[in-house]
């Protein structure tokens, strides 16, 4: 979420050191009245998007698979996007973090949906572990991708960027 802040390469070590001694979070999110409005709008949009993903899947794949497929799509896409937001300078403003991070990504992804799926055996224990593992991987991947995009480099990608698997787009 937004409290993770931007982990650009120059600040990463300082943030990690601070986190070791302080808390689970690097920088607390801004907590102003306008943030409730921004998180409301972003969260509403994210929740609506999650519902639309389910409706779309319901029209395209077998009904029995909709819940599981929807969970994987929203949670992994949302986690990757949050990582990207936290790494990208373009999303560094508090307004952007509230709307897109705590708002959209928070509303788009769901833990209660995963809990329901676990209880109703829609998702197997191994798939649950896979979702958890992949969630961490795609968040970290999004973070790296976001940071890469903000590095002061020439439009022609350096050789390391060209060979990197993160530079997929």
């Amino acid at each position, binding site marked *: *979420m937004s*409290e*993770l802040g931007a982990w650009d390469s120059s600040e990463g070590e300082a943030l*990690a050191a601070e*986190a*070791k001694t302080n*808390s*689970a*979070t690097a920088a*607390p*999110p801004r*907590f102003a009245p306008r*943030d*409730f409005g921004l*998180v*409301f*709008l*972003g*969260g*509403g*949009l*994210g*929740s*609506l998007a*999650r*519902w639309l993903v*389910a*409706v779309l*899947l*319901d*029209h395209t794949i077998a009904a029995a698979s*909709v*819940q599981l497929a929807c969970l994987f799509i*929203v*949670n992994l896409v*949302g*986690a990757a996007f*949050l*990582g990207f937001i*936290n790494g990208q300078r373009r999303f560094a403003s508090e307004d952007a973090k509230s709307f897109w991070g*705590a708002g959209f*990504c*928070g*509303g788009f*992804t*769901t*833990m*209660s*949906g*995963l*809990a*329901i799926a676990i*209880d109703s055996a829609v998702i197997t224990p191994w798939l*649950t572990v896979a979702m*958890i593992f992949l*969630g*961490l991987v*795609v*968040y*970290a991947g999004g973070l790296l991708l976001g940071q890469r995009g903000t590095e002061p480099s020439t439009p022609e990608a350096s050789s390391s960027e060209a060979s990197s698997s993160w530079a997929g787009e």
Partner: protein
Amino acid sequence: MSLDTLNPALLLLVFIAGGLGSAIRLLFSRWSGRWPWGILVANIAASLIAGMTIGRFSGSATIAVVLVWGVAGGLSTFSSWAGQTVHLIGAGRWITAVLYTAATVALSSTAVYIGLAIAAR
């Protein structure tokens, strides 16, 4: 779940309910020390709400869609858990990361059961 609906009124309700759930999660997220307690509690509370709703209403009822997909879905979050856990791992706090993850999944799925049990009473 009746997912075959794009009823504008339902879409608006999901938007509002998801926004409210998310705004409440912002309140919870302030509670964070060495553990991200706020998000953990938000995920558990959302699962409890979802369980109670499913136990009380048919899954396809509008009220159930609004409460489960809107309020509970907006209140709970997978992305914040992922971000916080990656951050914990990055800080070398592996044990906290594993315990936080285990607590989130175990307590959330337990909360759904408790919600179902409460609704059945």
